């Protein structure tokens, strides 16, 4: 009998001493992404005590969370779990999440718990359980839950039914490359430029005596890391490889025992070539130059697309002075538009200009391209010569500007405003011939005998660039030209393209 009692006490003490659990506050997703449920946390603590676990004091856990700045619930990291074992003396950590909780009918509650071993941060047990009030109703209504306590009792019974009663052998390998933080920069580098690599190991490893020799490997090259002056980072620097490409950096830790562990920690890109850029401008080709009068579309394009850091476009006049400068960061624009104005919002004069587009990539390698354009706003300058032979009139039209004409028309009107002739064409010089019109019956005013007929004319010319001119000739025979249309001299018919 005494032997049995002794055995029971030994068994109980062994189990009790191996089953200290730190119950962290439950995350309550019904409240928010970081809400907590104190009531259910207390209930879980009581359930763990009832099942023979020794539970770490609540205040100690709060102090632990404050000390280690644990701000999010139900998301302990491996390092925090191991620290909980060391500082709280806990064999196990229990964390959990409340998924659904509605106490008012229809009552719903669902909960998830995870049990982790602090010796190796392994997840040993997890269980999810959910209850809906209709699931608890029996056929005769016997033993139906009457309040939330009854529901929680049923929930926790189901939740904890398969919780393990003992700790498991630790799987922890003391020789692990536990990296807290990695700083590898720059991400993009020119050949020969220095790459810096800094590693922060978890303090338990960094401060221990069994610290490994850490080496950074890039391809076949090895760069030993050494503790910096502040004793915070293990650091190494090396020149970037000469060949363009992506380079992966892995760390290898070698312990005195000979154990070796590796981890990929990052990559960097060696950029050896400047970006290749072209620009296309849309306008009319005249004398080997793109010519425009109003809007010039500029389309830059990377021949081999790559990320860039910034770009700039400049317009230079014939004296090489910059009249327009614009730039941006990151992506090059799909299209730019120049309306023939300077940065001071004044009209640029007619003439030749150089468009210069420059781009810099992520390692500041620069590339430029340029093109010549010509701005021409001057409209066609038309000379009109008239010859007359009895009743036949011949009009010679000629463009004194070098820019070819693309379209013209000329209308002729009697004194009374009746249009009697329309001539049009696509090229100049040209000659228009017509017979003087007879006065129609009833047309007023009657022409006095011997008086010269008055013929009005309207001329429109457009060149290949799009510049236009319009002239009204009040008296063709006297070639009285107006420089501009007067409002009170508008013709009586609708004039298109004015």
């Amino acid at each position: 009998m005494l032997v049995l009692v002794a055995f029971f006490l030994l068994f109980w003490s062994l189990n009790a001493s191996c089953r200290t659990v730190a119950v962290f506050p439950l995350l309550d997703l019904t409240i928010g992404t970081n809400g907590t449920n104190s009531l259910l946390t207390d209930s879980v603590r009581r359930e763990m005590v009832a099942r023979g676990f020794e539970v770490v004091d609540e205040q100690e856990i709060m102090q632990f969370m404050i000390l280690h700045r644990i701000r999010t619930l139900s998301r302990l990291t491996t390092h925090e779990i191991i620290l909980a074992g060391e500082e709280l003396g806990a064999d196990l950590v229990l964390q959990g999440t409340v998924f659904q909780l509605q106490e008012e009918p229809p009552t719903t509650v669902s909960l998830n718990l995870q049990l982790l071993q602090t010796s190796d941060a392994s997840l040993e047990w997890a269980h999810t359980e959910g209850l809906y009030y209709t699931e608890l109703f029996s056929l005769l209504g016997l033993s139906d839950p009457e309040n939330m306590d009854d529901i929680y009792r049923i929930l926790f019974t189901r939740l904890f039914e398969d919780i393990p009663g003992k700790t498991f052998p630790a799987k922890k390998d003391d020789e692990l490359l536990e990296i807290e933080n990695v700083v590898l920069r720059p991400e993009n580098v020119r050949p020969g430029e220095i790459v810096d690599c800094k590693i922060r190991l978890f303090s338990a490893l960094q401060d221990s005596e069994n610290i490994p020799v850490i080496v950074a490997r890039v391809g076949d090259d090895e760069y030993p890391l050494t503790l910096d002056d502040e004793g915070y980072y293990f650091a190494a620097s090396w020149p970037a490889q000469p060949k363009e490409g992506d380079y992966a950096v892995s760390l290898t830790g070698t312990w005195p025992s000979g154990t070796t562990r590796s981890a990929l920690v990052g990559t960097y890109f060696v950029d050896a070539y400047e970006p290749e850029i072209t620009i296309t401008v849309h306008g009319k080709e005249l004398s080997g130059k793109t010519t425009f009068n109003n809007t010039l579309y500029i389309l830059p394009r990377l021949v081999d697309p790559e990320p860039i850091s910034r770009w700039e476009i400049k317009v230079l006049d014939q004296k090489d002075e910059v009249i327009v400068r614009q730039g941006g960061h990151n992506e090059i624009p799909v299209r730019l538009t120049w309306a023939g104005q300077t940065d001071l919002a004044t009209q640029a004069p007619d003439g030749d200009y150089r468009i210069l587009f420059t781009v810099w990539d992520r390692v500041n390698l620069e590339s430029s391209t340029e093109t010549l354009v010509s701005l021409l706003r001057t409209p066609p300058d038309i000379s009109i010569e008239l010859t007359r032979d009895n009743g036949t009139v011949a009009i010679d039209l000629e463009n004194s500007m070098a820019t070819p004409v693309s379209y013209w028309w000329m209308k002729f009107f009697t004194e009374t405003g009746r249009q009697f002739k329309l001539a049009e064409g696509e090229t100049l010089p040209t000659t228009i011939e017509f017979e003087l019109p007879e006065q129609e019956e009833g047309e007023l005013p009657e022409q006095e005998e011997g008086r010269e007929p008055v013929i009005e004319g309207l001329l429109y010319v457009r060149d290949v660039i799009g510049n236009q001119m319009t002239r009204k000739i009040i008296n063709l025979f006297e070639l009285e030209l107006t420089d501009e249309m007067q409002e009170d001299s508008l013709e009586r018919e609708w004039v298109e393209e004015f």
Partner: protein
Amino acid sequence: MYRIVFIIVLLTLTGCAGKFPALQESSSMPVDAACRVTILPFIDKGSFTRGGAVFAKVFLTELIASGHFQVVEEGDVIELYQQFKIFPNQQPDSEQLKKISGRLGTTLFVGGEILKMEEHKQGVYLDPGLTVMLRLYSGQTGEEVWTTYHSRRGKDYQQVLHFGRINTLTSLAKEMSGEIITLWLEKGIIPCAG
């Protein structure tokens, strides 16, 4: 586009209440896939508040409960997401996955989207609905290896009268997770020997 066509063909051939979960293999599963699994934050397109977090935790629990997988701590994953500046609603690219794998020793990543997560009241009962698309990525290459589509409603499990019916999203997620894991084990994920 390819996956949308796959889903349309799947629904056409199997009907709306077709054979789920449905698995598509993009490449062969690594031999040691089950040895260290990392669950990535799911992209949540459902209407249930914080549904992505709910499903991720439930799925992690079922992976552990199956006894065949070792799962990386959620806290370790979030910490690396912060270091690599990856947003939770953003799927890491293959290069980022390789870096995460290097730091965590991951052999297999489980990520994906919650396409639908909702609860409707039907009389005294709740009718939860859940549709998920899970994507498995190789820890070594960061490339996608399998895709699994699963869709269920709580009443799909109803047997006689109201018995068997699932009334909560959590229970539905738990049931569906079990079905997905069972399918994976059938299709060739080999339990880790270690």
